[in-house]
């Protein structure tokens, strides 16, 4: 890993693919020395960011996320946009390894020079999903990409994390076999800016239409996050490339309305704030777990709490107080 931040900064600003890729690797690194360099790089790149459309996409496995991004992204490149796709794949909890197969489902986009696709493993427990996705997004923007798509699997809390870093959050669904809503969580409805029912093709068109009505009903029960935007439900077929332009129009429409009302600026300010708090929490956690005295005492304290010899409240107080001692000097 190169030590000089300007090596990365210049490479990204020159839109050099190799350097863009290496810079993402740098920010994803878990080594403190790398993170130190990464901070400088991000700071320098920050003035070159902010102009892209940031789009989050989630959906249950089988909803056709990758196929959607393949068709949607390809369409955007024909409109002259430069598209970066950041895909987050789950890491195995047992081995820590991962299978990053997104590009096999984005065959055309993967070889398209107007597009850049970077799959990232979700990583271990530290920070979980999308630990460095914000930074990666900024790097891509600085490299001149004007549409950033963040793809995430619809499991755990990943949707809300991703929703808190994009301008527009799109939830991809498919029609079910019966009349039930396909595995959509209330929390997801609350952060959705649009629901798109995919695979509205062949003998599935009518079922997709039915599902659209059901999602519309479901959305009525949720208070929209903006008074100026009622999240629409649309149908599309990524495979047959039908309805994709409507989705893009909706994204642009949303951007126009939100910009005019000032909500976009507000949203980005809020996001900057939540990013700061995210980093503060991460820093505190790291400080706590890496503190030599805590590392020394933790096993005994854990044992005593487990054995019922020490109240959890007292144990927590004692542990946090250790951090306090540092501040006395």
């Amino acid at each position, binding site marked *: 890993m190169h030590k000089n931040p300007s090596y990365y900064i210049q490479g990204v600003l020159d839109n050099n693919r190799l350097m863009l890729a290496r810079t993402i690797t740098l920010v994803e690194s878990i080594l403190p020395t790398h993170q130190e360099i990464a901070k400088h790089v991000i700071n320098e790149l920050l003035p070159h960011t902010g102009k892209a459309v940031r789009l989050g996409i989630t959906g249950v496995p089988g909803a056709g996320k990758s196929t959607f991004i393949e068709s949607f992204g390809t369409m955007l490149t024909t409109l002259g946009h430069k598209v970066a796709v950041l895909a987050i794949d789950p890491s195995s909890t047992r081995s820590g390894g*991962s299978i990053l197969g997104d590009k096999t489902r984005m065959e055309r986009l993967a070889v398209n020079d107007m597009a850049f696709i970077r799959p990232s493993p979700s990583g271990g427990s530290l920070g979980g999903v999308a630990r460095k996705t914000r930074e990666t997004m900024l790097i891509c923007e600085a490299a001149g990409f004007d549409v950033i798509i963040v793809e995430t699997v619809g499991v755990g809390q990943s949707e809300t994390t991703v929703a808190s870093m994009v301008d527009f959050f799109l939830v991809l669904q498919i029609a079910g076999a019966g009349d039930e809503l396909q595995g959509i969580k209330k929390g997801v409805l609350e952060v959705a800016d649009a629901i798109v029912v995919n695979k509205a093709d062949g003998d599935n068109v009518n079922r997709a239409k039915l599902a659209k009505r059901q999602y519309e009903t479901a959305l009525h029960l949720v208070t929209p996050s903006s008074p100026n935007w009622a999240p629409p439900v649309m149908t599309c077929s990524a495979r047959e490339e039908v309805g994709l332009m409507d989705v893009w129009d909706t994204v642009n429409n949303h951007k126009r309305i939100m910009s005019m009302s000032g909500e976009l600026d507000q949203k980005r300010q809020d996001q900057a704030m939540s990013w700061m708090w995210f980093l503060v929490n991460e820093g505190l956690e790291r400080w706590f777990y890496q503190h030599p005295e805590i590392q020394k005492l933790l096993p005994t304290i854990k044992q005593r709490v487990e054995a019922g010899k020490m109240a959890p409240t007292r144990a927590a107080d004692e542990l946090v107080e250790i951090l306090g001692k540092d501040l006395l000097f």
Partner: protein
Amino acid sequence: MATGYEQWLDMATKQMKGKSPDTLNWKAPEGITVKPMYFEDDIKNLESFSMFPGMAPYTRGPMATMYAGRPWTIRQYAGFSTAKASNEFYRKNLAAGQKGLSVAFSLSTHRGYDSDNPRVAGDIGKAGVAIDSIEDMKILFDGIPLDEMTVSMTMNGAVIPILAMWIGAAEEQGVKQEQLQGTIQNDILKEYLTRNTYIYPPEHSMRIVSDIMAYSSKHMPKYNTISISGYHIMEAGADSVLQAAFTLADGVEYVRAAIRSGMDVDTFAPRLSFFFGVGMNFFMEIAMLRAARFLWYKLMQQFNPKKAQSSMLRTHVQTSGWSLTEQDPYNNIIRTTIEAMSAALGGTQSLHTNSFDEAVCLPTEFSARIARNTQIIIQEESQICRVADPLGGSYYVEWLTNQIVAGAEKIINEIEEMGGMSKAIASGMPKLRIEESAARRQARIDQGKDVIVGVNKYRLKDEKLDFEILEVPDSVRLEQIDRINHIKKTRDNAKCQACLEAVTKAAASNGNLLEVAIAAAKARATVGEISDAMEKVFGRFVATTQCVSGAYSSEYSETSSSSAQVIEGLRKRTNDFMAKTGRRPRILVTKMGQDGHDRGIKVVASSYADLGFDVDISPMFQTPEEAAKMAIENDVHIVGASSLAAGHKTLVPELIQNLNKQGAGEIMVVAGGVIPPSDYQFLYDNGCKGIYGPGTPITESAGKVMDMLEEKYCK
């Protein structure tokens, strides 16, 4: 209980020094528990039991006298280089006792590309003969009378242009369509499952299958319009139960498609044929063939056929290519012999025996002769053909047959509940089952639970390859391109274009595609042009790759100590690597060229992830330039390129050059698959850092990869 059983149990227990003979039970990969002894009680009331061969439900074979009347057809699959070279090879083989022809096509042809297409520069003539036009087809069958010879063609993707050219070439030889005999593979469903030599999306491909059935039932009554293939499913790692279940479920799907297109079941069902693969599990393979015949009879009854032949399963068998080893390769002759015995005792109608050198390269004249003689010796020296189904009534074989029936039927019912095989394939279920089975098999081999002589047991210390290696020169490509240019210059272009437009029109409407393609073939349109004419309407299919995780290591966790420690050791190394360098070792596994055999990279991807690697998988059919782009954008440490189709000498060096050109020379490249050892030095000289041939345990290759990564990044 039969008299005497108690006594046997006593004796067995004594011989076992007091332990129950149950401790000798063996759990086969199919999930079937095999006992050390079978007797009368085991075959009471078996559903699949049948008394006579040639009679329903055909468990004992489709013919009353079986090989006593006429032995199976010796049908060797072959083809390489140019049409002229293959034609010479065929003619020699026919003179030496082979009875039918079976054509292997170049991967470029399979995927509907002409030889001048830059995407296929590394594939021309490598794994089969390259055919670009009717002129090539005429050369291929020059001097071979197509009114007498039965010709089997392994073609699925570009099935319309190739069949059209064959029919056209026969007509220009003076042979009438109704005289034509043979088989076209035309089994597109399994391509989406394993072999990946498709062109169009499934629904359009199914329509092509129906068009061919409809055309042939009218004009070519003696022609087998489909060969429903389990072979590739087995080669991809499926066990016998999975092979039987998925193949028969494919068959049912084709029958339904044909009936939907308005055909009567008895007009086409007698022309359906099957193609199974047979591996080293001797009795299991025999039982699978018997079970498949019974099940097909049973499954066909739902369509109320009137003709007996409509529910009679006739099959071709090929011995397993996967079971062949690069190490100590003469052992492959013995493996193939045992597999050929399985096929014969299972009652096949025709057979291909592999050449011993196929784990290393394409068969030579010498190795092809031994392969052919394997069958001739069984037929003409061993006297086993004298009696029909000699294993009928064997307690063990009859019991095992019924077990496979039960296991396969369960899976078939599951598929039926999903709405048939097309729906099941779309859901990804069959593919995942096969890959899981493959990953488990690899893990058993890596641990020595499944013995492979010369690979994981009795391995030779210093091995030297001492046989000749057939290599297809790159000049083949230039020769093909010359001929394409010549044809395009000399043909009536206006007429050719009109014919191609008719193909596009038929694709968009409901015209019979084969009919219009025959006209186009005769007007000298190329394979690529006819394929493109349909692609305009159908589009090209893009596969989605799924990959199982956990299957490899779970096979390890079932065993004890030493092998589980190997896994743990590697996991520790990948973890330590992350602690030192800031991220996990990241590898891109890729397949370049038109070779669609992805079992190897799937197993590697799945197992490496289980060992703690971050594994990127590339789309199929990459050019070296595309693979380099992906390696750079994903910023991997290392690229593993898999090659099973002889393209490695062009594709691997080009990948390395592309990486260097784009300033990413630090990304290492290793190769795996079927690569002759004599090419190793060439690849090393061109910058390849490691080569892992067939039979290399995953743990060994992963260990070597980690050695290199630690050396480079952790010092």
